[in-house]
C-alpha cells in the first residue's frame, strides 16, 4: 500500500527496552518486622542440564533484550517481543535458585513502606526516582486480608526462604507442571512462529470471579454510593442533553459531560473523598469473598517494580515522558502482576514440602513478571499507525485533500475486497457502535464557523471548560479511544487479524478515521528562557540588599480606600496609568527613583496592555517574561502593582474580580459558560429526580467561592505568564494506542493488527476480565469488549467480558450489519466512484454520520418515559430497521442514558 507507512516510531529507541525490570515483594509485619518475599534480582534460573537448544538459550526470565543493543541494527520492524509457550512434554519446569537478596533491599524497603508506618488501610501508591543508577520505582502498598478460616500466614513461605541456601532441584508436582508449562517463555522476534500449543489461561491469570457490580449510567435505582465519585457514573445524574423540543444544534455531548464531571470528581474543593476502588487489599486467602474477613494482624505487603532508566540522557527523557503519560496502563499491568502474586502465595501455601513450595511460588511469580516485562516492552516498542487519519486531519488542515483521497481510496479497495461478506460494513457497524467518540464530533455546533465554512469547529465550550475547570486531557483522550462514552460504561478495543500485512494495514488505516479522540497540544516553556516564572529569585534579587526600607510596599499594597480616592491619588501621581472602564489601576511606585517618571509610566502602561493580552492569550507573542521581574525584582523601576478594586456587589455578580483590560471578553465568556451550564442543569433538573439533594452541594461550592470573593483585603498580584511554545504532543494516547501491524497481540491498544490470533485467544478473556476489575480508565467499567476482525476469514466478532461461553469454541458473537452503516458507506464510495472531489465525499460521510446521530435522537425521544418497547414497534413508528437498533441505541446512550435500560 503505497500511501500507508506504518513504521515504528523512530523516537522509540530500542535500547530503552533493554532495561531490566525488577520486582520486589516485601511484607511489613507488626510482629516480625520487614521481610523480603521476592526479589527478582536475587533469583537465578538453574541450568536444568537439558540438551541446550538454541531456543532454550533465549529462554530467559530476566527481561534482557540485548539483541538489538549488541547488533546495533534496528530490530525487525517492530521491537515487540514475542512470547510463545515452548514447553513441550519433555521440558522440565525451570527451577530457580533464591540467593541472598541484593544489599539494597533494606533501603528499598524503607522507601516502599516509609520510615513511619501508616495506619491507612487502603492501598498506597508511590513513585521514587533513584538517581544512581537511574531507576524509577513504582510501589503499591496493600493491607492484607485473610479469610476467616485461614489463619496460617505467608510466614511459612518466608521461613522456607530463610532456611534455603542451597539449590533445589525442580519438582514436578501437579501444580508445578502447570507453572512449568507456562513459565518457560521465549523471547523471539516476529519471524519466528509461536508454538502451536495453547497455554493454559487459568494458570496465568487465575479466573478472578469477584462479583462486580455493574456500574451503569442509567438513572433511577442507582443511588448506590460505592462508586460515587465516578465521573461517568455521576453523569447519569445530570441528563446530558437538553430536553426534547429544545435546540438540536448544540446539546452538551457526553464527552463534554465526562470532562466536566471528571474535573469535579477530582476537585480539591471537595476535599478527599474515597472513591470506588479504595478497598483494594492483598488477599492471602482463597476466600476472597469470605463473609467474614478478619484482619489477623496488621500486615502490609508492598509490591515494587523498579525500572532501570536508559543511560543516555535523551532516551532517558523519552522513556520517562512515555512512562508518566502512560502511567495508567503501567499501573493496570502492575495490578495484574499483583493478582498473580496473590495467587502464587495462595497456591503455594497448599504445598506441604517447603522446597517444592518455594519452587512453585517462584515459578509463578517469575512467570507473571515475565509477562509484565513483555507487556511493558511491547507497549513502548510496538509499531504504531504513523498517520492515523482522523488525528492527521484534525492537525494538518493543509493536507486535508490528500488525506481524504488516500482515505477514500483505501476504503474503496477494502470495500471491494470484502464485498460479498459485507466485511467492511460489519466492521464499521461494530466500530461505530462501540468506539463512540465519533458521536460528539458530528453533533452539530451552534457556533458560526470561524475559519473555512464547512470544517468542523473546535468545541469552544470544551475549551472553556478545560481552562476554568481543568481536567486531565490525557484521561479524556483515553476514554475517547476506548469509546467509554455510553451508558453503561463500556470500553472497547479493536484487533484486526490477518496474514496479509498489507490488507490488515489497510483496515487499520481506514479504522483510524472512525476511532476518534481529541488531539493534544503541549505547551512548553522554552529551555533557553532565562527567567522562568517557576523560579522565585531572579538575578536582581539574588543580591541581598537588606537595608531596603519597607520592601513589600512598593510591590503590593492592601486596598482599603475607595476606588475614587485611589483613582484621584493615582491620577495625581502618575497621570495616564489608571485605566478607564476597568476596575483596576496600574500603579508605579510613587517613590520611584526612576530618572524620568513620566516616561516610565507610559512605558508601564503599554507594557501592561501587552501583558494583559499575554495573560489571556497564550499564543500571542510573549513579553510576559517581564512580569516575573515585576513580582520578584527590587528594581525601583519596575515596581508595579495591579489592584482589583470593585464594589463587593459587582465582584460577586461577576463571579470573579475583574481582570486586566483585556479581561472583559474573558469574563464574558466565563459568564456565558456558567449561564449555559446552569441553564442546562436547570433544564435537566426537572427531568431527573436524582438531583434531589444537589442544592446543598452546589451552594456550598458557591459559598466557598463567594467567601473568597472578598479578595479586596488580600494583596493582589499579577498572574505570571511566560512564553510558551505550543507543539503537538507526542506522548499521548492518540499516538500510542493506535497500533500498527504488530507481531503480537497487545492488550492495551485501542486498535492494532496481528498476524495470528493464537495469543489473542489465550489472553483475551483474561484481559477483558482484568479490564473490568482494574480499568486503566480510573473509573468503573461495566463491560469490556473487543472487536476482532479477521481479514482472512472476513469475519467480524465482538467478544465481551460478560459472556464467557460461545458456541463452537468461538471467541465472540458475529456482528449484524447495520443497514444504515452499509448504505452510508456505499453511497460515499459511489460518490467517490463518480469522481466527486474526495474532500466533498468525506464531508458527505460526516453528514451521513450526523444523520445517524439525529436518528438516535428520535429513538431516544421515542423511548423516553417508556419501560419496554418491542423492536417491531420501532420499525413501524420510526422507520428504524432492526439491524440498526444496536447502533442507534449505543449512540443514543451517549446523550440519553435511560435508553440502554429500556432496550436491554
Amino acid at each position, binding site marked *: 500500500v503505497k500511501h500507508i507507512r506504518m513504521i515504528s516510531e523512530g523516537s522509540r529507541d530500542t535500547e530503552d527496552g533493554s532495561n531490566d525490570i525488577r520486582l520486589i515483594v516485601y511484607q511489613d509485619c507488626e510482629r516480625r518486622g520487614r521481610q523480603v518475599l521476592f526479589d527478582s534480582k536475587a533469583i537465578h534460573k538453574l541450568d536444568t542440564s537439558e540438551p541446550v537448544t538454541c531456543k532454550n538459550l533465549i529462554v530467559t526470565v530476566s527481561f534482557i533484550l540485548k539483541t538489538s543493543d549488541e547488533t546495533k541494527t534496528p530490530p525487525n520492524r517492530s521491537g515487540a517481543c514475542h512470547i510463545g509457550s515452548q514447553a513441550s512434554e519433555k521440558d522440565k519446569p525451570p527451577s530457580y535458585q533464591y540467593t541472598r537478596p541484593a544489599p539494597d533491599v533494606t533501603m528499598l524497603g524503607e*522507601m516502599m513502606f516509609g*520510615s*513511619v508506618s501508616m495506619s*491507612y488501610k487502603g492501598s498506597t*501508591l*508511590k513513585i521514587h526516582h533513584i538517581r544512581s543508577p537511574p531507576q524509577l520505582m513504582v510501589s503499591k502498598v496493600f493491607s492484607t486480608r485473610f479469610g476467616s478460616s485461614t489463619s496460617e500466614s505467608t510466614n511459612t513461605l518466608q521461613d522456607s526462604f530463610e532456611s534455603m541456601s542451597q539449590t533445589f532441584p525442580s519438582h514436578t508436582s501437579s501444580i508445578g507442571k502447570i507453572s512449568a508449562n507456562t513459565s518457560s517463555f521465549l523471547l523471539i522476534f516476529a519471524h519466528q512462529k509461536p508454538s502451536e500449543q495453547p497455554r493454559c489461561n487459568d494458570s496465568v491469570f487465575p479466573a478472578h470471579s469477584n462479583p462486580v457490580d455493574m456500574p451503569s449510567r442509567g438513572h433511577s435505582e442507582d443511588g448506590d454510593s460505592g462508586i*460515587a465519585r465516578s465521573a461517568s457514573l455521576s453523569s447519569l445524574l445530570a441528563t446530558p442533553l437538553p430536553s426534547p423540543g429544545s435546540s438540536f*444544534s448544540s446539546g*452538551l455531548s457526553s*464527552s463534554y459531560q465526562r470532562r466536566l*464531571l471528571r474535573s469535579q470528581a*477530582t476537585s*480539591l474543593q471537595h*476535599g*478527599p473523598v474515597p472513591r470506588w476502588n*479504595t478497598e483494594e487489599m492483598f488477599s492471602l486467602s482463597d476466600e476472597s469473598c469470605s463473609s467474614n474477613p478478619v484482619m489477623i494482624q496488621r500486615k502490609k505487603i508492598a509490591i515494587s517494580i523498579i525500572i532501570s532508566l536508559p543511560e543516555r540522557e535523551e532516551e532517558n527523557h523519552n522513556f520517562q515522558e512515555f512512562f*508518566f503519560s502512560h502511567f*495508567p496502563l503501567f499501573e493496570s499491568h502492575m495490578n495484574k502482576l499483583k493478582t498473580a502474586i496473590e495467587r502464587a502465595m495462595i497456591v503455594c501455601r497448599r504445598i506441604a514440602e517447603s522446597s517444592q513450595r518455594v519452587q512453585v511460588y517462584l515459578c509463578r511469580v517469575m512467570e507473571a513478571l515475565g509477562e509484565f516485562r513483555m507487556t511493558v516492552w511491547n507497549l513502548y516498542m510496538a509499531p504504531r499507525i504513523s498517520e492515523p487519519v482522523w488525528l492527521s486531519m484534525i492537525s494538518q488542515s493543509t493536507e486535508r485533500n490528500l488525506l481524504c*483521497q488516500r482515505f477514500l481510496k483505501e476504503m474503496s479497495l477494502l470495500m471491494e475486497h470484502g464485498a460479498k461478506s459485507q466485511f467492511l460494513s460489519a466492521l464499521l457497524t461494530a466500530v461505530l457502535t462501540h468506539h463512540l467518540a465519533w458521536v460528539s*464530533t*458530528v453533533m452539530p455546533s*451552534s*457556533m*458560526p*464557523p470561524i475559519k473555512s465554512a464547512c470544517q*468542523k469547529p473546535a468545541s469552544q465550550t470544551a475549551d472553556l471548560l478545560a481552562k476554568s*475547570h481543568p*481536567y*486531565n486531557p490525557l484521561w479524556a483522550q483515553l476514554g475517547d479511544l476506548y469509546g467509554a462514552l455510553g451508558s453503561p460504561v463500556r470500553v472497547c478495543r479493536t484487533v484486526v487479524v490477518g496474514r496479509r500485512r498489507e490488507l490488515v494495514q489497510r483496515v487499520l488505516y481506514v479504522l483510524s478515521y472512525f476511532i476518534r479522540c481529541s488531539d493534544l*497540544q503541549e505547551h512548553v516553556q522554552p529551555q533557553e528562557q532565562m527567567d522562568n*516564572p*517557576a523560579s*522565585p*529569585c531572579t538575578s536582581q*534579587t*539574588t543580591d*541581598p540588599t537588606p537595608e531596603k526600607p519597607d520592601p513589600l510596599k512598593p510591590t*503590593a499594597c492592601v486596598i482599603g480606600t475607595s476606588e475614587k480616592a485611589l483613582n484621584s491619588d493615582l491620577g495625581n501621581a502618575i497621570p495616564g496609568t489608571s485605566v478607564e472602564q476597568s476596575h483596576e489601576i496600574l500603579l508605579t511606585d510613587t517613590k520611584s527613583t526612576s530618572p524620568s517618571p513620566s516616561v516610565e509610566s507610559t512605558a508601564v502602561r503599554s507594557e501592561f496592555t501587552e501583558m494583559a493580552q499575554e495573560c489571556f492569550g497564550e499564543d500571542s507573542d510573549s513579553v510576559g517574561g517581564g512580569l516575573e521581574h515585576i*513580582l520578584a525584582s527590587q528594581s525601583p523601576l519596575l515596581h508595579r502593582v495591579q489592584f482589583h478594586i470593585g464594589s463587593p456587589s459587582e465582584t460577586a455578580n461577576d463571579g470573579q474580580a475583574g*481582570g486586566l483590560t483585556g479581561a472583559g471578553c474573558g469574563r464574558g465568556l*466565563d459568564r456565558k459558560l*456558567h449561564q449555559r451550564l446552569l441553564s*442546562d*442543569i436547570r433544564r435537566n433538573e426537572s427531568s431527573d429526580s436524582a438531583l434531589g439533594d444537589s442544592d446543598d452541594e*452546589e451552594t456550598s461550592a458557591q459559598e466557598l*467561592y463567594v467567601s473568597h470573593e472578598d479578595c479586596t483585603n488580600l494583596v*493582589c*498580584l499579577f*498572574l*505570571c505568564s*511566560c512564553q510558551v511554545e505550543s507543539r503537538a504532543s507526542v506522548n499521548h494516547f492518540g499516538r500510542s494506542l493506535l497500533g500498527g501491524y504488530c507481531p503480537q497481540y497487545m492488550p492495551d491498544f485501542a486498535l492494532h493488527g496481528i498476524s495470528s490470533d493464537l495469543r489473542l485467544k489465550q489472553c483475551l478473556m483474561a484481559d477483558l476480565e482484568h479490564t473490568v476489575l482494574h480499568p486503566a480508565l480510573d473509573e468503573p467499567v461495566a463491560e469490556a469488549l473487543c472487536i476482532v476482525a479477521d481479514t482472512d476469514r472476513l469475519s467480524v466478532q465482538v467478544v465481551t467480558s460478560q459472556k464467557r461461553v460461545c458456541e463452537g469454541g468461538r471467541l465472540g458473537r458475529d456482528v449484524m450489519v447495520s443497514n444504515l452503516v452499509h448504505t452510508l458507506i456505499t453511497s460515499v464510495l459511489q460518490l467517490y466512484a*463518480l469522481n466527486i472531489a474526495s474532500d466533498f465525499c468525506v464531508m458527505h460521510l*460526516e453528514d451521513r454520520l450526523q444523520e445517524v446521530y*439525529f436518528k438516535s*435522537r*428520535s429513538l431516544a*425521544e421515542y423511548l423516553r418515559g417508556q419501560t419496554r418497547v418491542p423492536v417491531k414497534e420501532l420499525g413501524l*413508528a*420510526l*422507520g428504524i430497521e432492526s439491524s440498526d437498533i444496536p447502533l442507534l441505541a449505543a449512540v443514543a446512550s451517549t446523550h440519553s442514558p435511560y435508553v440502554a435500560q429500556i432496550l436491554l
Partner: protein
Amino acid sequence: MNALVALCHFCELHGPRTLFCTEAVHPPSPSPPQPGPAIPGDRDREADREGEGLTMRANSSATQGADMCEGCRSLPASHPGFVSVDGETGIRYLSHQHPRQPQLFSVVRQACVRSLSCEVCPGREGPIFFGDEQHGFVFSHTFFIKDSLARGFQRWYSIVVVAMDRIYLINSWPFLLRHLRLTIQSLQNTALKVFDSEQCVCPQRAVRMNSAFSPAVFPHQRSGNAARSLTSLTQHPNLWASLHSSFSWLLKACGSRLTEKLLEGAPTEDTLVLIERQTEQEEEMSGWDGAEGGVSNPQPSQSESVQAKDFQFDDGRQEDILGPKFKSLRHLRQVLGASDFRQLAWHVLMGNQVIWRGADPGLIQSAFNVLKALLPVGCVRAVPYSPHYEEAYRCNFLGLSPDVPIPAHVSSSGPTLLNKMEVALSNENLSVEVVSLCLLCLKEEWMNKVKVLFKFSKVDGRGKEDTQKVLALLGATGPGEEDNVRLLKFWMTGLSKLYKSHLMTAVRVGERTLSQ
C-alpha cells in the same frame, strides 16, 4: 490545575511544618451533585484525626500560634495573604501560610508530614510521589537550604503538590519536576550567596569549633538558631510574593500544559442560514425584534430561540395572539383532514406559494408557524399578513385578508419525503416531540441529498446521465421521482451562502490525480 502547592519545612524544634500554601479556587460550576451519602463533615473529621495521628505533636490551627518560631512562619499573622486572578477563567490563586479551605488543612498537613518525616527519598533530596484515595496524592520534592547557623549548616524543606487526581498528577511529573527544580535551585542559590557572605563575615565552623561545648548552653543556642526564617536565609524581602507568583504560575501552567482539540459537527444548514439572516438583519436594521438573541452566542438556549424566532415574522408574539390557532402540524392536519393537509404539505414542500386567506391574522400566522417546520430554514420566505398580493418569488407563505384580490396569473403523486412524513404524523402513538425529531431527521437526510446534488450539478456541472446516477445513489429515484427532483431543486435554494461559496471556491487542483 486542580491542585495546591505548599512549601514545607522540617523545623528543628517543631518538626514538619507547612510554611506557605498556594491554592487554586475555581469559580463555582453548576456542579451536578456528588452522588451518594457523602457527608463531608464526617469525612473531614476523620481525616483530621488521621492527619494528627501522624504528627509529632498534635497541632490544631488554634494552638499553632503558640509554638511557632520564625522558621515555621512565612507571612506574619497580620498579613492578609496574596491573591492572583486569572481573568480569563476566573480562577483565583490564593496564598497563605495554611490553606484557607478547611477540608484541605489536614490534607496539606498530612502531605507535609509525610514528605518530611515518613517517606524516604534516596539522598534525601529529590522527587517522590505518594498518596492514597483518602488523603489525596502528593508530588513532593525535598531539598536543603544553606544556613550558616543551622545544625549541619543546612535546613530541610520540601515543596508538595497535592491533588486528588492521581493520574493527572503522575502525568505531570516531568513538568513539575522540571519547574520545581528551577524554583528550588533559585532558592538554594540565593541562600548559598547569603550563606557565603555570612561565612565571610563570621565563619561559623571556626566559631563552633572554638566555643567550648557546654551542655547547659547548647539547647539554648539551638533554639535560638532554629528561628531563622526563609526570608532571612535568602535575604529576599519579597520572597513570599515571589513564591506566590511562582506557585500560581505553576498551577496554571501545569493545568494548561496539555490542551485538547475536540471537534464538533459542522453546524447544520439551518443554523448557518439563520446566522446569515441574523447578520443581514443586524446590518439592515436594529429595531427588529427577532434579532436580539445573537447567534454568535454559544448558549443553546439562545440559539434555540433564534431558531424558533427567526422566520421573518415574529414568533415571540404568538403567545399573545388571542383566538384560535394551530398548535402543531398534527393539529393542522386534524383540522384540515388528511387529504387536504397532504395537498397543502405537498405544495409547501415543492416550493409552491401557499396563500392563506382569512380574517384572523393570528390564525394564519400560527398555521405558517407550524408549516414552516416542513422546510429548511433557507427555503422559508413568509409574509404573514399582507394588504396586497406578493409575488411567489418574494414569498412562499403569504397571508391575505379575504378582500385582497389575487392576480389572475396565480393559480398543480408526491415526493418520498412527504410519504414518510405522513407516516409519522398519522401515528398517534408518537408524541409531538418525537414527530418533530423525525421531521428533523427527514429534513437533514434530504438536505444532505440536496448538498450532493448541488455539488454535482451546480458546482461540477455534470451531465444528465451522471446526475441520474447520483439521484439513484441518493435514493431519490423510483416512485415519485419527478417530485423528489423538484423538491431537491427547490431546497437547493435554501442552502446557506457560506456552504455554496465554500463548494464553489473549493480548490480542485490535483484532485484525484493519485487515484487515476
